[in-house]
């Protein structure tokens, strides 16, 4: 089926529309497979939810009654169908821990995670692409080596270690920024930004090296092309050669790495959220695993997976759009 999807030429829509449609279909298929894996994986976890929930009061009769009320006595496939059907209608079920609808619980937390990730992305993406361009422009110079060394240092430390160092320096010694990133209702945007400055900075330091290095390498790769020599022979300045002639042809790998790092900003922030006590989705997931709140864990996993698939899909589409041969068909 996948092969069919990849191979089938979609004439009437033109090459780009066809490619986009196929990529979207593949993305949906991936998401479906991921949902099966999440459901199965969580179902295979040892221990019985009903026994766990009832704790001391677990008798065979109460366990059976609870299992029935939770729908756990039904076959796996039926349970999966119900779960997926609910999600498609926007119903993620109710939390086992506190009986609240998961939708509300997750939405607020996911919003927080996206907020933090967006702030970190808005700082780190322009910064790393800019630094990559500078490093490529002055390759071999002191500036190039400094940028390389510093970003390498920042990626080499574990993120929690970076986080603690930043807390010590910027929060405890300088007293500039709060070390706790708890958000409350009714906070203004400025206040919120102030609160999350440290986690955002930590995340920026973690992701910047990868994107900056790919920008630099990709630009340098394009610099060997004959059209770069041509641009130089037209009298273009080095900055113009890099920005106008090399960058438009170097986007594809850069976009892929940027998006991988954006996905990391959403999905991989659990550690940073825990360090800064930030009310994000990652922390909710960690808490729920401890409480064996299976439906919440499933919902979080699915959201993370959807983010990952969605962002990679975006990367593929942007790469296609970055290719002039696909943008302007013959």
């Amino acid at each position, binding site marked *: 089926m996948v092969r069919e999807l990849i191979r089938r030429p979609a004439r009437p829509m033109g090459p780009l529309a066809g490619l986009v449609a196929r990529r979207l279909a593949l993305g949906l298929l991936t998401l479906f497979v991921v949902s099966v894996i999440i459901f199965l994986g969580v179902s295979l976890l040892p221990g019985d939810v009903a026994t766990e929930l009832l704790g001391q009061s677990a008798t065979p009769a109460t366990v059976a009654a609870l299992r029935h009320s939770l729908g756990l006595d039904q076959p796996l496939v039926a349970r999966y169908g119900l779960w997926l059907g609910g999600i498609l209608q926007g119903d993620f079920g109710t939390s086992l821990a506190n009986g609240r609808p998961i939708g509300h619980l997750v939405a607020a937390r996911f919003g927080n995670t996206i907020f933090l990730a967006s702030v970190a992305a808005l700082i780190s993406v322009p910064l790393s692409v800019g630094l990559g361009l500078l490093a490529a422009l002055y390759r071999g110079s002191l500036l190039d080596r400094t940028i390389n060394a510093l970003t390498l240092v920042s990626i080499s430390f574990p993120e929690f270690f970076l986080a603690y160092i930043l807390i010590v320096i910027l929060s405890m010694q300088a007293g500039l920024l709060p070390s706790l990133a708890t958000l409350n209702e009714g906070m203004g945007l400025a206040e919120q930004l102030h609160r999350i400055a440290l986690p955002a900075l930590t995340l920026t330091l973690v992701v910047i090296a990868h994107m900056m290095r790919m920008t630099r390498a990709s630009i340098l790769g394009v610099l060997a092309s004959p059209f770069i020599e041509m641009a*130089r022979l037209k009298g273009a*300045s080095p900055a113009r050669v890099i920005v106008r002639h090399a960058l438009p042809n170097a986007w594809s790998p850069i976009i892929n790495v940027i998006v991988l790092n954006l996905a990391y900003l959403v999905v991989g922030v659990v550690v940073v959220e825990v360090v800064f006590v930030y009310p994000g989705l990652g922390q909710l997931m960690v808490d729920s695993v401890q409480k064996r709140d299976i439906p919440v864990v499933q919902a979080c996993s699915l959201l993370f997976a959807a983010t990952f698939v969605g962002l990679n899909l975006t990367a593929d589409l942007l790469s296609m759009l970055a290719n002039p041969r696909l943008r*302007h068909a013959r």
Partner: protein
Amino acid sequence: MRGLQIEAGGAAILHRLDLTLARGEILGLIGESGAGKSTAGLAALGYARPGTRIAAGRVELDGEDILALPEAARRRLRGARLAYVAQSAAAAFNPAHRLIDQHAELAVIHGRDPQSARQDAVALYARLGLPDPGRFGERSPHQVSGGQLQRAMLAMAMACRPDVVVFDEPTTALDVTTQLEVLIAIRDVVKAAGNAAIYISHDLAVVAQLADRIMVLRHGRLVEEGPTAALLSRPREDYTRQLIAPRRLQKPAAAGGGAVLAVSGVSVSYGTTRALDNVSLSLPRGTTLAVVGESGSGKSTLARVVTGLRAPDAGTVEFDGRALPPTLRRRSVDTLRRLQMIYQSPDSALNPHQTVAEAIGRPLQVYVGLKGKAQRARAVELMRRIELDEGLLDRLPGQLSGGQKQRVCIARALAAEPDFLVCDEITSALDPLVAGSVLELLLRLQRELGLSLLFITHDIATVGAIADAVVVMHRGRIVERGTRDDVLSRPQEAYTKALLAAVPQMAPTWLDSVLAGRNGGPAPPV
């Protein structure tokens, strides 16, 4: 240019070259690859490729040494007063921008008005005979053909009305008929603008059409220099003489035996494009059939069908009286052994990490079952056959010259003891003199071993040298077939005639006579 010395990795690639260009003069620079032509051409713009360095000398423009200028001042000259036209326009245009934007960029860089540059571009496009000049520039480089792209680059070079244009093999990557159009365009524009030009090429006949004066370079040194007519009629050096009149190889016609290869009704499509359309041909044993055509004519697809790299959509290939399975996988080892292929580019056909002995040893082991000492002895014998020193056996391809590499490819094919060779443009990547010696070798091997050759080429001179019979292909069809002499001397079809007429002749008046023929005058003598 005075005493220009350019080095790469400590070795000089240009030795104290002196070159003077008068205003309005066209100077031809000629020589084989590695002769330092391009290096000299780029040096005229004060530019040295990464890895090379201008070690000594001066490049003067109106008496001012541009090498002594700061880089920013040199940049102001490039594109404005000194322009460059690259060999492959397809590679030299930035794929991300529209043609006219790249044209107008010169105005942006050099602080002129981009809007009038755009209008000027349209006027130049019109003058160069580009289709729909008003909208031509709106296209991206991949949307136009190679010949059109080369003309667009010519227009771009003229954008700032430079004093000097350096043409670096601008027609080498083009088909002969396209080359003709581009040559006409270049001459027209340069003559009209009256600027000076350096025209670099390995093809003396092309240079002779344009240049007032010619310099012959070899191994980074000047061999000979003189006005075009004088140099062609009274060359002083042997090397120049060889370039002017390459030894005419003429193969005695061979009758041949029964058909060793018979292709009947073969069609191949890539997507909606028909690469081969109902192609049939047969090749008598021990003879050479040349398949001639321009790029896109389906020649290489034919080679892929014969060797089994591509299964035909329809039709059959018979080898030695028996139908061949369409795909490589279903052919017997013995068939694979008997039918060998030699490729256009020996650089990409040889594994750069394998020594010559390993490259030749592999077929010896797989097809003939030779190992160890016996394999080595046979490899030495093969080296002798291809007229290479056996000491080269332990070299890597990177340490060999282009001609040597192609000989190694021939030896590798011969190692399988084949009786049929498919040669796909095997001399196209070689310089004329080297190509001639490779062809000579191939002819001798054919005589000694009774090989049958399917020889694919776009070069008419090569056809004359080696073919017994010729088929001419155009857009996937065979348009004409016959013996070599019939097709080359008495072509019947209009396409064959056009193809033959587009081959540049050494006489400097050739281009004029072609143009005269077009304008209703008498047809040019071919």
